[in-house]
């Protein structure tokens, strides 16, 4: 028997397996699990968007699109950022439609990183950034955010991590897995460091619309940051379109064109059906989106209050749809807690260390589930703790 693994590249061997996989495998085959482990909305894509997808298929729109994405979609994206944040991106050469935000992040890193370049990221964070940096040939430099600072990253922390090899910073607020947000002044502090050390920022703001009790600040809207930011976003979270895979990148034409180069040779274009749906979502989806945001906000209040009542200390998450409680009071580690909770009560959560070392001792609990499910989950966690 040939050991096929000998054919694998050295690089792929350096990519650590996803820690989330283990929990995924544990849940598989279990019935009636109440899952707080999900990183996507429980809402189905609003009907008017699905209908636009169906209609586009009926009309026979099944071809490739322009590599950059349908111009109508790029225009709609550009308009929405003008209206929401007062930032202007030319749909012709500053907007690139991708197959989800993950592709956009990968493109950005591959377009920027030379072997040995360092990319700073704040942890806990989305599981893909670190492997994507490694795959692009770079070196990830994690900076740990803490509960004390409500999982915000500071200019000071970034500055301390900067070396001569630092090329870029990946920012991701509102944050998965913590639900943390950054205030404008927090971001301005970062912007100063970015200018000071001549860096670039990849800002993944896919949860921007899911911000509660306050308004999201778009990083590129800060003074001088437009030319130093690759802004990533998509419709997955805001319009409950995860499986349709529509993301986009916006930035200076010189950077977007480099990303487009990779995209056109690899992905070619995002699926046309999903792009058609995305146009409808951006043109006519505001009311349904706001209704979903209000619903998330209610769940958030109920769930976070519930966790704190059970003694699982949880700061107020003001973004995304995650609560990030500490398990310190229970004397268990977060992975112990997650595994025991799953086996005893059939409630699935994801231990925080999956999202980076500094997530150890915390749990990511998604409240993108119906109210009844959340209430049952809280009761089961209560039983588990007693």
């Amino acid at each position: 028997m040939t050991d096929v693994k000998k054919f694998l590249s050295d690089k792929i061997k350096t990519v650590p397996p996803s820690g989330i996989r283990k929990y995924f495998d544990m849940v598989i085959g279990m019935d009636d699990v109440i899952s707080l482990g999900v990183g996507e909305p429980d809402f189905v894509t609003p009907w008017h968007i699905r209908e636009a997808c169906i209609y586009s298929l009926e009309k026979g729109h099944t071809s490739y699109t322009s590599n950059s994405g349908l111009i109508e979609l790029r225009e709609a994206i550009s308009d929405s950022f003008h209206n929401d944040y007062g930032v202007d991106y030319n749909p012709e050469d500053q907007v690139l439609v991708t197959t989800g935000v993950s592709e956009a992040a990968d493109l950005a890193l591959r377009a920027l990183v030379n072997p040995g370049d360092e990319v700073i990221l704040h942890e806990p964070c989305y599981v893909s950034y670190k492997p994507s940096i490694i795959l692009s040939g770079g070196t990830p430099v994690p900076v740990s955010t803490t509960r004390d600072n409500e999982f915000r990253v500071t200019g000071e922390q970034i500055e301390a991590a900067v070396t001569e090899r630092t090329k870029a910073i990946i920012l991701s607020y509102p944050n998965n897995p913590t639900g943390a947000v950054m205030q404008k002044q927090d971001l301005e502090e970062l912007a100063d460091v970015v200018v000071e050390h001549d860096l670039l920022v990849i800002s993944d703001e896919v949860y921007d619309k899911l911000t509660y009790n306050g308004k999201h600040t778009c990083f590129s809207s800060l003074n001088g940051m437009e030319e130093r930011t690759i802004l990533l976003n998509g419709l997955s979270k805001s319009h409950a379109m995860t499986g349709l895979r529509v993301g986009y990148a916006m930035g200076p034409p010189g950077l977007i064109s480099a990303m487009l180069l990779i995209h056109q040779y690899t992905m070619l274009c995002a699926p046309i059906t999903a792009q058609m749906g995305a146009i409808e979502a951006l043109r006519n989806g505001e009311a349904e989106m706001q209704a979903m945001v209000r619903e998330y906000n209610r769940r958030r209040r109920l769930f976070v209050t519930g966790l704190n009542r059970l003694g699982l200390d949880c700061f107020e998450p003001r973004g995304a749809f995650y609560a990030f409680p500490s398990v310190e009071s229970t004397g268990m580690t977060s992975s112990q807690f997650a595994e025991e909770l799953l086996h005893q009560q059939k409630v699935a959560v994801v231990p925080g260390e999956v999202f980076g070392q500094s997530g150890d001792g915390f749990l990511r609990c998604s409240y993108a589930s119906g109210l009844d499910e959340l209430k049952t989950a809280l009761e089961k966690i209560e039983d588990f703790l007693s």
Partner: protein
Amino acid sequence: MNEILEIIEQDPKKDPSEIALLTGYSEKEVKTRIKELEDSGIIRKYKAVIDWDKVGEEYVYAIIELKITLGDRSGYDTIAHRIASFNEVRSIRLISGDHDLSLTVRGKSMKDVAFFVAEKIATLDQVQSTVTHFVLKTYKEDGVPLFEQEKSKRLAISP
């Protein structure tokens, strides 16, 4: 205020203590506000959407469109209030288009409904003509689908 209304519209049975959790108001505030909303008539009534077909109860529904000739001194409101007073009439609306009023009528049988229209509605002076559409099946009522929907196939764990 609208926040509370949105919650109650979805689920009138929701406990004030839970509404408090969901909105961030105190339970006392929620109770006071709901009382105000009820007193001012903003909340008209708490009502259940019932799938009577499932119960096996043989109700017959019909949508009836009316052409109205207005009398000298009375407008649509007068005739609409009059028709609305019949128990059989579940809803009544002034509409644009070929007809003026649209009613939903509920009866125990088609005969029941037909007699009601013939004897009580068509005989009114202002009613010039009627068109009766019997309802064969209701798929959605008051925003609530009355058919089973497929469950989401979301993975239990995802990044």
